């Protein structure tokens, strides 16, 4: 409201009047101006400060244990027994679980998400769009503990039945009761859906109309147009969405905490496993000394993973920006 009035008075305001009001208090005004601009710069720098602070403290808290344990022993050791009489801190299986789990979740989640994005951007009628769109938004807003709860109550019993059927009579298999890598992967796959759908949909929508029109005019069908023209044209946005999805999957803790079984193990589908994130959550509350420091080292490894993903993302975005700009 005020804005409109201000603009209107601009034209009618007499030059002399505003001239005098400014001159009348120019000293205090310029002081306030300076203070405010400093405040805004400070606000702008908070984000930089926060990232620096987080990086520094993750390194400070995470590196002592790596130093004491030895980096090779820590990264490539397969035995994680922090509270044993002869403690051992090898997180190879934990790292592998995070990598394999994320990879499988992306493998399952991304195709579903991409086709859903295609549906939303190209196929859905306005009426159905109005129903599917809010569903995706709700899926994005559901807290991760709820995914964990539903996974633990609905998915884990199904996995248990599958496990019992598959490993019937097996003597080498350790039965997990259904809390295993596969359960975690499925929960993660659902959790990355909204991220991938949203970003891919907007990048599909951003493809210039002319491309689509030209393709249709040349006789390609709607589906051919989508998959041979629109999807390739939206490639950088789609890759971005996948990288964001990977980031979400790598960093998720609470949901998979409740469905993955929490045993340090090789990441095989029906093994109970522990991820980088769940490794921290599980033991943080009762850990002390070197054990606690080692948990912060796991945090540091996770942080490095995320930073690499962020940098990859930044490079993709920059490339995409150059192409479009």
């Amino acid at each position, binding site marked *: 409201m005020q804005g409109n009035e201000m603009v209107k008075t601009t034209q009618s305001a007499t030059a002399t009047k505003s001239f005098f009001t400014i001159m009348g208090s120019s000293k205090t005004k310029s002081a306030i101006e300076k203070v405010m601009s400093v405040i805004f710069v400070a606000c702008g720098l908070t*984000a930089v400060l926060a990232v620096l602070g*987080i990086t520094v403290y993750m390194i400070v808290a995470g590196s002592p244990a790596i130093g004491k344990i030895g980096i090779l022993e820590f990264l490539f050791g397969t035995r994680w027994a922090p509270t044993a009489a002869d403690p051992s801190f090898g997180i190879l299986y934990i790292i592998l679980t995070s990598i394999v789990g994320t990879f499988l979740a992306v493998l399952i989640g991304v195709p579903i998400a991409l086709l859903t994005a295609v549906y939303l951007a190209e*196929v859905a009628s306005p009426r159905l769009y109005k129903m599917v769109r809010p*569903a995706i938004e709700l899926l994005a807003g559901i807290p991760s*503990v709820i995914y964990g*709860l*539903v996974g633990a109550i609905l998915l884990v019993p199904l996995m248990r039945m599958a496990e019992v059927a598959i490993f019937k009579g097996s003597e080498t298999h350790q039965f997990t009761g259904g809390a295993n890598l596969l359960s975690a992967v499925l929960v993660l796959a659902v959790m990355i859906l909204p991220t991938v759908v949203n970003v891919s949909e907007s990048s599909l929508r951003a493809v210039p109309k002319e491309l689509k029109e030209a393709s249709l005019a040349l006789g390609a069908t709607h589906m051919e147009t989508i998959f041979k023209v629109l999807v390739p044209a939206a490639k950088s946005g789609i890759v971005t969405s996948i990288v964001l999805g990977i*980031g979400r999957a790598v*960093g998720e803790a*609470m949901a998979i905490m409740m469905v993955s079984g929490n045993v340090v193990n090789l990441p095989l589908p029906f093994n109970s496993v522990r991820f980088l994130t769940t490794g921290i959550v599980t033991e943080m509350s009762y850990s002390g000394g070197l054990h606690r420091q080692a948990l912060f080292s796991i945090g540091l490894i996770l942080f490095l993973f995320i930073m690499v993903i962020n940098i990859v993302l930044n490079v993709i975005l920059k490339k995409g920006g150059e192409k479009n700009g």
Partner: protein
Amino acid sequence: MAKPDVTGGLYVKRTRTFDRIVKTAVYFCAGLTVLILVSMLLYIVIRGAPQINWKFLSTAPSSLKGTYGILPSIINTLYIVFITILIATPIGVGAAIYLNEYAKKGKLVRIIEFTIETLAGIPSIIYGLFGAIFFGEIMKLGYAIITGALTLSIMVLPIVIRTTQEALKMVPQSYREGALGSGATKWYMIRTIILPSAVSGIVTSVILSIGRIVGESAALIFTAGAADNLPKNWLTHPGTSGATLTVQMYFGVSNGKYIDEGFGIALVLIVIVLLINILTKQLSKKLEK
């Protein structure tokens, strides 16, 4: 005269296997996504609804009496939401104003934008670790609601900055030119023209932040802790440990004791998320107008 051969011509519908398969896949995946959501919601409503009654919402859990209630965690959640918004909104809006109104394109802006991206990508468990060391140990706040709120303030910063920036970009350039041209100083222009025009965008950013805070758990267990006591003193309560709804639900469910009650909390959370989604949609419609 021979009839023109029209097989394969314009007027004959060819069956295209590629099209059919792909189209089925597209419908299947969209349907699957909706089905997953709907079945999750239905299940939560069916198991959660019987849990919800006045006693559930208005008492504290008591192991002595063997009763379960979520009032303390509702209050804790409100405290954390309030404090976090109080800290993050001014800083976030200030940063957005700096980026949009003051900064000239250059290295500093690129660095700031990169760090905002980075903050948005850092998982909540890392925020939890950082908050536990920095606010909890180094600043000696310990397990406390204020520790959690400070941690979450950094976490929601990217949401506030980005949403506000978008709102600021929508303010027509002519408003700025008009104000500056008529002799207003920069801060006067921001205070009287830019901020009032961007207010619904700022409100949207606050609501989105509330959504993120209400759903957060990993960043809070190591910072705000897990206590579920009713506040003894409203002023000093933020200095004490307190579980939010999600944290209480996590601990209740993971020790296997309060599964059904967990679904009750899940239902409460879903209702909050739903309300937040509706609110933001209404606001963004208003913003577009």
